[in-house]
């Protein structure tokens, strides 16, 4: 009796143990296969970086060997494409950012340099500067490939595995003890001496050093700035219960920060504002108030936005674009100089559709770029420009516009709003050269028109 009970219990126990063992093994296998898959994914990304980087070196070397590399078929567009692909894959590797930042920057520079040259529409040939930039890039590419090969050898000889690196980062973030990060550190050290390159692309260095052109006037004290903010913000009659300075901001435009508190005490609305130290311009403010159900129309909201800017002494601004999202309407304004719309001088406001309050005001674009412009007189007439358009386009509206180029320059253009096959486009023709600078597709959504 006892023995039978005992045996039955023992058998039950072993059965359970057996099931647990099977389950455990299957879990271990699943984990291993998931790890291998991840490892393969990381290896694919790494080998892609290597291959693309070698392509870059080869293309740069061909460019240097050629007498007129801008004539060699696809050389610069290949370069651009390879640099983009290398950068994209580099960022998929499980490495901490400080180990790949400079390598990534280098790849961006290569792509940007190539892009700037392919985009050059005024027929300029490779200059001596372009050529010396190319030589610098080539030298760096050689160094990069030497180092990448070392990393590859370490990976292939099993010195580290990418998925182990992953665990290492989580547990020893500060120690940096994993060897893939260490491997890459030597790559990164080769990138240290990266020179400041001269070209004009969307990522070029000089963009970060841009000076605010619209910040004029004398320096103001914190008290004066606070008063400016208080008079500027659209409180919509709400009583300010508390206000305080929150310190200074070391951004592109040095500024004072302020906070205003309105609404009921349990869930207050907080309005944060930044005012420039020079001239006391309000750079932005934003109100955290939750917007209730829409009560006013979009047209009314536009009027609220326009009246707001006028009452704050910001003149000659024209609405260029609106977008409705939830119970708010974003209204973008651009400066108008005579008949010319100046897109870089941009102000955005966010209007609450429950009571028309201006919740957010953002003039960073305006303050960075607004200045007295000496606009050149157009070299081609608007009818000449119209002839440059695709004949299938049906022009609906036309005007002159200043648009930003990829770099830091501005271009005077004719803007044509035109229709083709039931779709709307904006086409920009350079008013000096007649070149087609840019084309946007307009996408009409219930919220507003999106520009692609």
């Amino acid at each position, binding site marked *: 009796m006892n023995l039978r009970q005992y045996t039955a219990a023992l058998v039950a126990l072993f059965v359970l143990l057996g099931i647990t063992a099977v389950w455990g093994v299957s879990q271990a296998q699943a984990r291993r296969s998931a790890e291998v898959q991840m490892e393969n994914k990381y290896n694919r990304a790494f080998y892609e970086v290597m291959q693309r980087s070698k392509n870059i070196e080869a293309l740069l070397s061909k460019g240097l060997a050629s007498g007129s590399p801008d004539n060699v078929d696809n050389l610069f567009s290949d370069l651009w494409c390879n640099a983009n692909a290398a950068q994209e894959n580099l960022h*998929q590797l499980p490495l901490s950012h400080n180990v790949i930042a400079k390598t990534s*920057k280098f790849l961006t*520079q290569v792509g*940007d340099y190539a892009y700037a040259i392919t985009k050059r529409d005024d027929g300029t040939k490779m200059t001596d500067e372009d050529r010396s930039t190319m030589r610098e890039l080539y030298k760096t590419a050689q160094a990069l490939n030497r180092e990448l090969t070392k990393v590859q050898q370490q990976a292939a000889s099993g010195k580290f595995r990418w998925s182990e690196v992953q665990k290492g980062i989580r547990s020893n973030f500060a120690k940096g003890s994993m060897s893939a990060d260490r491997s890459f550190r030597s790559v990164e050290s080769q990138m240290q001496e990266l020179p400041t390159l001269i070209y004009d692309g969307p990522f070029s260095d000089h963009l*970060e050093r841009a000076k605010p052109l619209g910040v004029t006037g004398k320096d103001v004290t914190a008290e004066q700035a606070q008063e400016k903010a208080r008079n500027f913000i659209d409180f919509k009659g709400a009583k300010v219960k508390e206000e305080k300075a929150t310190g200074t901001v070391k951004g592109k435009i040095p500024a004072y920060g302020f906070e205003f508190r309105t609404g009921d005490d349990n869930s207050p609305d907080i309005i944060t504002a930044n005012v420039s130290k020079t001239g006391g311009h309000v750079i*932005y403010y934003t109100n955290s108030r939750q917007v209730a159900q829409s009560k006013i129309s979009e047209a009314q909201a536009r009027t609220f936005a326009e009246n707001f800017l006028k009452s704050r002494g910001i003149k000659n601004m024209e609405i260029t674009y609106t977008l409705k999202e939830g119970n*708010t309407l*974003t209204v973008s304004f651009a400066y108008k100089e005579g008949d010319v719309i100046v897109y870089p001088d941009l102000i955005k406001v966010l209007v609450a559709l429950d009571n028309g309050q201006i919740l957010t005001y*953002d003039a960073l674009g305006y303050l960075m770029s607004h200045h007295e412009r000496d606009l050149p007189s157009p070299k081609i007439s608007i009818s000449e420009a119209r002839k440059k358009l695709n004949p299938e386009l049906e022009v609906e509206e036309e005007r002159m516009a200043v648009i930003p180029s990829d770099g830091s320059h501005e271009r005077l253009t004719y803007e044509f709003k035109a229709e083709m096959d039931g779709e709307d486009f904006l086409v920009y023709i350079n008013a000096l050269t007649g070149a087609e600078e840019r084309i946007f597709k307009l996408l009409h959504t219930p919220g507003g028109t999106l520009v*692609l």
Partner: protein
Amino acid sequence: MDMKKPQYGLAALIALSLVFFCAGYLLWRQGGPDVEPRVNTADSIAEASPETNVDNVDLLARVIMGEAGEEPYLGKVAVGAVIMNRMRSGSFPNSLSGVIFEPWAFESVENGFIWSREPTEDCVRAAVEALNGFDPTYGALFFWNPSKPVGPWIWSRPIITQIGNHVFAR
């Protein structure tokens, strides 16, 4: 009399193994932490017009929720702005998804929290403002909570401003 002791022990053993078995079974059924992606309304709109930024709003709002869910509204916009600034920087990927899914970039992406909670209304509004180009950080590329441990290298970055519990740096 003696019999009782081994019987108790045996019963306990069987009960214990049953508990283990059940726990194991439950774990197995669940298959790890709860990170199942959820279908949401934004997806269906995005499908209707694949080119709009509706899908971007949702993705960005989720990261804002994960990284700055407890922050004041401006702190939420600021985190969204950092992501937008990274897209424009040479040392980060050039696309929104590239920046967000870069390994180790955002804790809430790594641990899957961005998929476990629906973003609140003010996270969505913050995402819209960041996508519209509003940047209270003036070009910051990094943010961190100074009261939590972070890698030492990050302190070498020039700090621009503090918003809520986060400092923002270039």
